[in-house]
């Protein structure tokens, strides 16, 4: 009987404790989709092309381990990008020999990261994040056989039809903020920068919507 009484008293104390009263139920997961621009060609280290930003879409899922720490995973999808590579090469008696090669590129990547979110239970949470992006970078390079003339010297560039898929890994860091409309829905803004073997690889600036659940 004494044990039962003690148990009831302890249960009542725990239920009425300030700690439990002060802790609201925060959602453990969040998910979202975002649109962004990729700056830099670091996914394709073997090519030399114009560096205009490319659109990228993120679908992401996060799991909170406590009020600050979260694991994030994302799928990154891009459009097929058509462009040109300008290649110079050495030929006897032909200074400045060059050719143009078309390329069609597409990138599909997954990323995993650990995120630290500042503040607790606020309408805006800045965060910092770091992790890895693993991408399958497909590249189709092709050109017809073409003849060029420079300084009255003619040379022929052979036909090319080359397909490759490279798996590349890029560590990245990110900063951003989750800004809430209400208790659960938010806008996520983020800037991330990734590095490769040769230093800076690419950066992504993105904005998207998400929900906690």
């Amino acid at each position: 009987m004494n044990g039962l009484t003690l148990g009831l008293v302890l249960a009542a104390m725990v239920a009425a404790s300030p700690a439990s009263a002060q802790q609201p139920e925060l959602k453990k997961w969040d998910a979202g989709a975002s649109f962004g621009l990729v700056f830099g060609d670091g996914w394709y280290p073997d090519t030399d092309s114009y560096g205009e930003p490319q659109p990228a879409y993120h679908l992401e899922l996060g799991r909170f381990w406590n009020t600050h720490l979260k694991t994030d995973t994302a799928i990154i999808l891009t459009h097929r990008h058509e462009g040109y590579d300008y290649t110079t090469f050495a030929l006897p008696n032909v200074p400045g020999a060059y050719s143009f090669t078309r390329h069609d590129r597409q990138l599909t990547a997954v990323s995993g990261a650990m995120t630290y979110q500042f503040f607790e239970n606020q309408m805006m949470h800045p965060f910092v994040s770091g992790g890895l992006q693993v991408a399958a970078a497909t590249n189709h390079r092709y050109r017809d056989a073409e003849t060029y003339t420079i300084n009255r010297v003619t040379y022929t560039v052979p036909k090319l039809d080359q397909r490759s898929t490279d798996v590349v890994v890029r560590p990245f860091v990110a900063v951003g903020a989750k800004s809430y409309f209400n208790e659960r829905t938010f806008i996520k803004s983020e800037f991330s920068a990734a590095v490769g073997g040769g230093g800076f690889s690419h950066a992504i600036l993105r904005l998207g919507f998400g929900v906690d659940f």
Partner: protein
Amino acid sequence: MGKVILVAVLSALLAAPLNAQTVRDDEAWRAFAANLEPNAFIKVRLTSGKSFRGYVVGADDHELRVNPKTRVAEPLRRLAYSDVVSIERQKESKWNPATKVLVGVGVAWAVLYGIALLAYASGYD
């Protein structure tokens, strides 16, 4: 004996302003809180170093009751005046952070688009 008296006098001199300060702060915040109307938006800093914003629910001689402004609702906070470092009346923003981000991005996009249009119109392409 003389040393003891000296120490006692010095202690009293040093402690007196601190005690007076504490009592005065308590009373000041009690009086300040009594003049806050219900639902006034305030920022409170506590002796623990933490601070938060919220809405006044009520105040009496013993405590100030504040409904904290959080994303997910939290219970009322009952604050003893001795725990209060400062109370500031605040002006509450009408827009939530997400709306501010959307407006900011919209304005930035409009400015960039406008510059591009002007450049195009002036023949610089």
